[in-house]
C-alpha cells in the first residue's frame, strides 16, 4: 500500500518533455467525466500511494497523490478527524490527487471552506520534469507565492501532484438534520437568516420543495439550534448527505447535461429558457446550484455571467456535440486568459501536462 514511484513518474514526464508528447494525468480515473477530452499518453499516478505522516494533534496529514480517498478517510476516522471540505469521491477509486486537482468539495464547503482552503503544501512535477515542493506542513506559511493553492483546481495542467499536505479537523460531536417544506424563495430567505447568526449550520440543500439543514457541533449547541430552526427531524440524514455529495439522489438521474452554477447565494432565480424549478438543486446556502438543462452553453453561461457568477458543464448528458468542448468551463476575459496562458507557459513550457483539459489555450 506504500509505494513511491516518483522517480518513474519524473522520468516519464522528462521523456515526454524531450519528445514533446502530451500526457493525460490519471489517478483512479473516477473523474474522467469532468473537463474536456484530450488524447494523450497516460501518466498513471494511482500506484504512487501511501500516508507519509499523520499526527492527529498537529491537525495535518501528508499523503502521496495516488492514495485512495477512502484510505485517508478511514485513517482520519480512527482518530475522530475529517477533511472538513467533505470531498465527493464519485467512485471507490478516487484518489486525493484527483480531488485536489479538481478542487472538489462537498456539502460542508459553504460553512467550512473548500479543498483549496485545507491545502497546506504540495510536491509536484512541473512540465519540465522537475520535482518541486511548495508550502509545507504548517498552517501559517507565507514564504514564496502560494503555488500549492494554485494547483488546486488546475486539473493537472500546471503540474503533476506527487504529495499533498492537508489540514484536518476534529469530527463534529453531533449532527442533526431538519427538513422544512417551503418555496425556493422562502428557502433562500431562511438560509440567509441563519447565515447571519452564529447557528452551527454545516450544510443546506433545497430541491423538491424541501429545505434541509444540517447542524453540527457540540451536543447542547446542536440541540438548541434544532429548537430555533424548527421543521421536522430527518431520519437517515447521513445517507442523504452522502447521496447528495456523490450525486446519487434521483435529481441527478438525468439524460440532460448537468450544469454547476457558482453564484451569489441570494440570487432568487436564474432565468434560462425551457427550465423550471424542478431542474434546479440548491446547495451551499444558495451559492451552488445544479441545473439539468440541454440549452446551449452560451445561453446558460451568459445568464450566469449576468449575475457575476460562473457556470460549468459538470456532467454531460446523453447527447454531447463536439462543438461543446470549448464551452465546458465559463470563458475567461481576455486579460485573465493572457495571465492563464503565461502561467501555463511558466510551469509547462512544452504544453505536455493535460493540455486542453480546462481550456484549449492551456
Amino acid at each position, binding site marked *: 500500500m506504500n509505494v513511491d514511484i516518483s522517480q518513474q513518474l519524473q522520468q516519464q514526464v522528462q521523456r515526454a518533455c524531450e519528445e514533446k508528447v502530451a500526457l493525460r494525468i490519471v489517478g483512479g480515473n473516477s473523474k474522467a467525466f469532468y473537463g474536456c477530452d484530450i488524447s494523450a499518453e497516460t501518466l498513471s499516478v494511482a500506484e504512487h500511494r501511501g500516508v507519509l505522516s499523520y499526527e492527529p494533534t498537529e491537525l495535518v496529514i501528508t499523503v502521496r497523490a495516488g492514495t485512495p480517498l477512502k484510505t485517508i478517510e478511514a485513517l482520519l476516522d480512527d482518530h475522530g478527524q475529517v477533511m472538513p471540505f467533505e470531498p465527493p469521491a464519485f467512485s471507490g477509486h478516487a484518489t486525493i490527487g484527483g480531488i485536489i486537482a479538481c478542487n472538489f468539495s462537498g456539502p460542508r464547503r459553504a460553512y467550512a471552506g473548500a479543498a483549496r482552503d485545507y491545502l497546506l503544501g504540495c510536491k509536484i512535477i512541473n512540465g519540465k520534469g522537475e520535482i*518541486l515542493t511548495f508550502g509545507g506542513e504548517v498552517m*501559517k506559511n507565507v514564504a514564496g507565492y502560494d503555488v500549492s493553492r494554485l494547483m488546486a483546481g488546475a486539473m493537472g495542467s500546471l503540474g503533476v501532484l506527487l504529495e499533498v499536505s492537508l489540514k484536518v479537523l476534529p469530527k463534529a460531536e453531533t449532527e442533526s438534520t431538519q427538513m422544512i417544506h417551503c418555496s425556493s424563495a422562502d428557502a433562500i430567505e431562511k438560509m440567509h437568516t441563519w447565515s447571519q447568526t452564529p447557528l452551527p449550520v454545516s450544510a443546506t440543500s433545497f430541491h423538491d420543495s424541501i429545505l434541509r439543514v444540517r447542524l453540527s457541533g457540540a451536543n447542547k449547541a446542536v440541540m438548541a439550534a434544532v429548537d430555533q430552526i424548527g421543521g421536522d427531524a430527518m431520519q437517515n440524514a447521513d445517507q442523504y448527505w452522502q447521496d447528495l455529495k456523490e450525486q446519487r439522489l434521483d435529481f441527478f438521474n438525468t439524460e440532460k447535461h448537468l450544469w454547476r452554477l457558482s453564484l451569489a447565494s441570494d440570487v432568487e432565480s436564474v432565468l434560462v429558457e425551457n427550465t423550471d424549478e424542478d431542474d434546479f438543486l440548491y446547495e451551499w446556502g444558495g451559492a451552488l446550484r445544479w441545473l439539468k438543462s440541454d440549452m446551449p452553453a452560451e445561453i446558460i453561461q451568459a445568464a450566469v455571467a449576468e449575475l457575476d457568477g460562473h457556470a460549468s458543464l459538470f456532467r454531460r448528458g446523453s447527447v454531447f456535440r463536439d462543438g461543446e468542448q470549448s464551452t465546458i468551463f465559463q470563458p475567461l476575459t481576455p486579460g485573465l486568459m493572457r495571465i492563464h496562458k503565461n502561467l501555463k507557459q511558466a510551469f509547462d513550457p512544452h504544453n505536455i501536462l493535460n493540455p486542453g483539459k480546462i481550456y484549449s489555450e492551456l
Partner: protein
Amino acid sequence: MNINMQSSNKVSLLKELLKLLPEDAVLHQAEDLHPYECDGLSAYRHLPMIVVLPNTVDQVQSILRLCYEGGVPVVARGAGTGLSGGALPLENGVLLSLAKFKDIINIDAKRRIARVQPGVRNLAISQAVDQLGLYYAPDPSSQIACTIGGNVAENSGGVHCLKYGLTVHNIQQLKIITIEGELLTIGGSGLDSSGYDLLALMTGSEGMLGVIVEVTVKLLPKPESAQVLLAAFDDVVKAGEAVGNIIAAGIIPAGLEMMDKLAISAAEDFVHAGYPLDAEAMLLCELDGTNEEVSEHVSKVHEVLQQSGATEVRTAKDEAERLTFWKGRKAAFPAVGRLSPDYYCMDGTIPRKQLPRVLKTMADLSNEYDLPVANVFHAGDGNLHPLILYDANIEGELERTEEFGGKILELCVEVGGTITGEHGVGVEKINQMCVQFNSLELTQFHAVKAAFDPQSLLNPGKAVPTLHRCAEFGAMHVHKGELPFPELERF
C-alpha cells in the same frame, strides 16, 4: 545607472506624473519623501525617487502604464505597518501609496460581504459592520492601523487563524491593476470561479504581481459568546503538550496563545493584567460559538489543562476580565519593547511538536549571542514570534541580532517549518528563502512573477532572491559541509 541619468529620468517622469495627478499628489522633495523611507521594519531605509498618491483607479492605471513604458520600478504601499520591509522604497523607483483609497464601497449583510478599497483599515471593516452583528475575522496585531490591501499582499493572520483562517480564506474577489495598467477582476460573486486560483496566488504575493485596488471580504456572524481561560505552567514543554491535548480532545479554540516568562513579566509590568509572574509559561485559550457550545467547551478545556499539569487555571469571570487577559497578550510587543532600546521580531512557524527542541536551541543561541529573547507564540498554529532584545546604538549589535534571527529561521526550516508565518519575506528574510527553497523552486517563483510582470518592475528584489544572491549567501553559510546550489558558479 549614473546619477545624471537618474536625475534626468526623475525630471521627465515628474513632468509626466504631474500631467496625471494634482501637484499635491506627487511628492519629490526630500523632506516630503522621508515619511515613506521605511515600513514597520525600520532597520531598512531608502528614500524613494518619487511618491505618488492617486485617488482613482484610472490614475493608478495611468501611473502604472507610464512606469511600464519607462521601465521604472514601482513599490505599492498601504499603511506601511509591514514587518518585513515589503514596502521598502527603491531609490530609482516610484512609491505608489494607496492611502487615499479609504472608502467602504458597499456592505451586503445578506451575502455577508463588504467591497472595500485597499486603504481601508482592517479594524474599520469590523467596526463598520458591527451593528449588523458581523465582523471580518483575520485580526493581525496591527489591525488598528494596517490596511486590507496590505493584508491581502501579505496574507495576514492574527490570533484567530486556527479556527477562522488567514486572509486567503476570508476574501472573495479582488480587483487588481497589472503592470501594463490593465484592470483585472479575480474571483466572482460565488464561492469559486473558473480557471486557476489567482485569488490564492495574489494573496501573499507581496506586491510583486499586481496592485490591488479593491477587495471583497467575507464577513462572519459575531459569535454569541466568547470565553477565555488562562493557565500557568512551571514548564514550557508542559504548556506545549497542553495545546496538543486540547486539540486531541476535539476542540478547536478561537485563539490559543502562549507566552514565556520574560514575555509574561514584560506584559504584566505594562498592563497589569494579573498574569502569573512565577510561571515559566502561560496559555490563553479562547473559546467562542453559541452559549451552549462555549460553556460545554470551557469545562472540557479546564479539565484538560489541569490534567496537563497546569499550576493554575483561571476562567475570566466577566467580559472585562476577558479583555484584560487579552490586553496583556496584545500589548506583548510594545511591552517587551520597554525592556530594551530595540527589539527584533521574528516570525517562523514550526510543527507544534517541535516546540521543546526549538525553545531549547533558541535558549542556547541566546546565550551564544548574548542577546535575550522573549517568546510570544500563536501556539494553536505553530507560529512563533521570538523577540530578540538589542540596542542598535551599540556598534555591531544589529548585525549580531540579524545573524541570530537568521539562525532561528533556519532552525524553523530544519524542523519542518517555515521562515515566515504571517509577516512576509520582504527584504528581511530574503536570504533565508535560499534555505527553504532550492534553485529550481526559486526559478519557478521567478517564472510566476514573469507571467504577470515580465520586466520585473513591481516591487523588484523583494520576497524571492535571485540565484546569485543565494549562491553568495550559501557561500557564507556552509551547512553540514554541503554547499547549497552546487550547480552555480561562485564569485
